[in-house]
């Protein structure tokens, strides 16, 4: 083991430079599973640990990442009325997607892990793995054009106030990724609401507005594409007449399912070639990710099933009322729009912030489905409800557990 001897030799002193040692330890345990053996208690341990748990979730969302990168580019060119086919301008779409998503990915990890490392060194314990998932989720739920300083601020807020203040991984009350998003939502609403935030790379979203290309577009990628004889980014591109950037949900709010399908086909919505958050649009890939989480039993099926039940039940009630066009949209149509499936697979199932008892998970899931649907359909100001519904139920998850546990205690006492 040459490598391990070398790594052991360069280990920094824990007393002299705690931050450096924490960082070293985090990377060392990332590379090598530690050589610790069991002391008291069971002599053997399961091969599963928190790192593996977290990385399974990250793996499950990789397809969403792949499609998200493409779709950022695709939506960009759809606005210009160019390269409307799936394959057309594929390299440009990928390049534009990478230019937008990579900085968000890098910054969210740098800020989030930086803060985690600092607190771990301060508290003198190992870096915990929670941010591996939060850091991977955040780029998938932010608008591609978000200024990086707003992103940094939101992550700092989420990690410091939302997590470290409560004691770190496993102690937080609210989902860290959603807390970052809700911070942007309330502090900088213009960057994340309305129809316009999901189409990136323009000065503004209006007819005739011109593109906003930087060095990476015109300098870096164009020179590569030129050398390969491929089409290049064109700085004279403008937004095509009649383009609104409206998401299916905004359309549904205006005129029900008929209005949605006049712009987007069902296929398009299922396969995700629609404007929306980076990770939420491709329903097939989200379901594949959810399947990975369910088969490995990493995420709770009770929460997912509860949310589906909540959504279907609430839709039936709304359908029965049917007083606005949006209320007549059926539950299958609701699932095709917006971020319900993404929230169900990756957000609500966070084991730390969800209810922890099996009965509680059902209640938690159903209530998210119910409240999320109410916000989606009844609230005119904001056409999507899952972020707020999940954060709301995060707050009440301990209360739900409290009642489940109390009933268990009462049952036991009644035996005596």
């Amino acid at each position, binding site marked *: *083991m040459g490598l*391990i001897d070398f790594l052991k030799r360069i280990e920094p002193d824990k007393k002299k430079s705690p931050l450096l040692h924490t960082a070293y330890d985090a990377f060392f*345990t990332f*590379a*090598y*599973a*530690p*050589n*610790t*053996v*069991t002391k*008291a*208690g*069971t*002599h*053997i*341990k*399961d*091969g*599963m*640990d*928190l*790192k*593996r*748990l977290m*990385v*399974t979730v990250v793996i499950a969302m990789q397809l969403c990442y792949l499609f998200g990168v493409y779709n950022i580019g695709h939506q960009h060119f759809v606005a210009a009325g160019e390269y409307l086919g799936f394959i057309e301008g594929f390299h440009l779409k990928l390049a534009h997607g990478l230019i937008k998503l990579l900085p968000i990915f890098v910054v969210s990890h740098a800020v989030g892990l930086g803060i985690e490392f600092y607190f771990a060194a301060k508290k003198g314990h*190992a870096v*915990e*793995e*929670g941010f591996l998932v939060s850091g991977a989720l955040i780029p998938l739920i932010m608008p591609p054009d978000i200024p990086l300083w707003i992103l940094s601020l939101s992550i700092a807020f989420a990690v410091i106030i939302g997590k470290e203040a409560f*004691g*770190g*991984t*496993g*102690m937080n009350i609210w989902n860290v990724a959603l807390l970052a998003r809700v911070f942007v939502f309330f502090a900088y609403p213009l960057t994340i609401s309305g129809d316009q935030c999901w189409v990136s790379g323009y000065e503004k979203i209006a007819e005739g507005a011109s593109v906003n290309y930087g060095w990476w577009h015109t300098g870096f990628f164009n020179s590569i594409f030129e050398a390969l004889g491929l089409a290049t980014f064109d700085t004279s591109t403008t937004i095509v007449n009649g383009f609104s950037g409206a998401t299916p949900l905004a359309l549904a709010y205006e005129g029900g399912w008929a209005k949605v399908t006049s712009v987007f086909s069902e296929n398009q919505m299922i396969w995700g070639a629609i404007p929306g958050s980076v990770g939420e649009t491709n329903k097939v890939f989200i379901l594949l990710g959810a399947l990975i989480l369910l*088969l*490995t*039993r*990493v995420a*709770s099926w*009770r929460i997912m099933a509860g949310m589906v039940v909540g959504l279907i039940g609430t839709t039936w009630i709304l359908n029965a009322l049917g007083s606005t066009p949006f209320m007549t949209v059926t539950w299958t149509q609701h699932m095709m729009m917006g971020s319900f499936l993404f929230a169900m697979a990756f957000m609500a199932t966070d*084991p*730390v912030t*969800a*209810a*922890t*008892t*099996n009965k509680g*998970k059902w209640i938690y899931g159903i209530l998210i489905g119910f409240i999320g649907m109410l916000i989606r359909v009844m609230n005119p100001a904001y056409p999507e409800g899952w972020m707020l519904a999940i954060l709301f139920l995060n707050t009440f998850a301990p209360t739900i*557990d409290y009642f489940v*546990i109390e009933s*268990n*205690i009462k*049952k*036991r*006492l009644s*035996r*005596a």
Partner: protein
Amino acid sequence: MSPIPKIEFEVGSEVKAGDILFYDKKRPEIKYCAPVSGELVDVRRGEKRSISDVVILADKQMSYRKWQTPDIHTCERSQLVSFMAECGLWPMINERPFDVVPELNSVPVNIFVSTFDTAPLAPDNILVVAGREEAFQKGLNVLAKLTSGKVHLGLDGRGTKPSSAFTDAYNVEKHWFAGPHPAGNVGIHIHHTAPIKGNDKVWTLTVQQVITIGQMFLTGEFHADTIVALTGAELREPKYVRTYQGAYLGDLLKGNIQGEDNRIISGDVLSGHQVSEDGFLGFKADQVTVIKEGNNYELFGWLLPLAPRPSVSGTIPAYGGKDFEFNADTNTHGEKRAFVVSGQYEELLPMDIYPQHLMKAIITGNIEKMEGLGITELTEEDVALCEFACTSKNPLQSILRQGLENLKEQI
């Protein structure tokens, strides 16, 4: 918890099997006796000069101290109790809650005996009871006299037919249990038959202990011979041996261990105790397990487990299905973390109990909640499987023990 021994013999003196070797200074009425006859050669001491081992060089031919046993059909319960305390049988009894040797005035609402063990590589009780069926039944009859309720027998309902000593036993109530570990744990049987409530006491015994008690009442002698399973991947030849309670491991394992750097466990891998190669079999142990120490680094060991390893997680493929072969070592496979995953323990503990919330109540010292959540229904072996599987590597058995100690102090 464990007794403070006051030794009755000097080093060098001869003892008979069944002679009172020492008594508990805290409770002098409870006596512990020698499992074999021979010369008392050594008294080993541990921390603060407390006695850790009393070593007897066993005779080839055992000589037994003869006891006059009371007739269980005619004697009073109190006579029976004082005889059992006097002749060293009393420590065979285990009392729940807390897993302790009961007080002499304690009357159990029920007595439970599990006739099968589902722990990893556990010995088959069909072999343990073979040839000693009469003693087993006699032991059950004695126990029936000691409880205000019933003697409950937990039987193996997983398919293979249990010994007729178990299925034909009388003076008992039989219950069948099926399923994977911990289905054979007596704690599970109690929970589903007559759960411990209020200040109730319940006694539990192993098949071997019932037999030892029965043999005393059949022969008037203390027979501590027992069947021990020598198990684990690091043994050249896993086998059953007939030996005595507290046997010297050096002799049992001699020449049978392969490789260096092994861990020797008196008991099973989930709740046994680590012992050294020149150590002794535990008081209740019916099994020795030898596995590899896992003190090696593993490149990306958390990401791509290449070698098959034991796991209940869906993220680790069970190579070749249910009966896949793997080598278990003592590596922790990860570092300790705060509780993150929920629902994991509930899946592995077939009881109406919320283990994670109970653990949190213990850690925060909330006595009322601990009791409400059923701490008195559990002992270490019941949560051992949860501890094995725990993603956050939390030491559930020692947390539970800490909670039980804490609760005991309050009573």
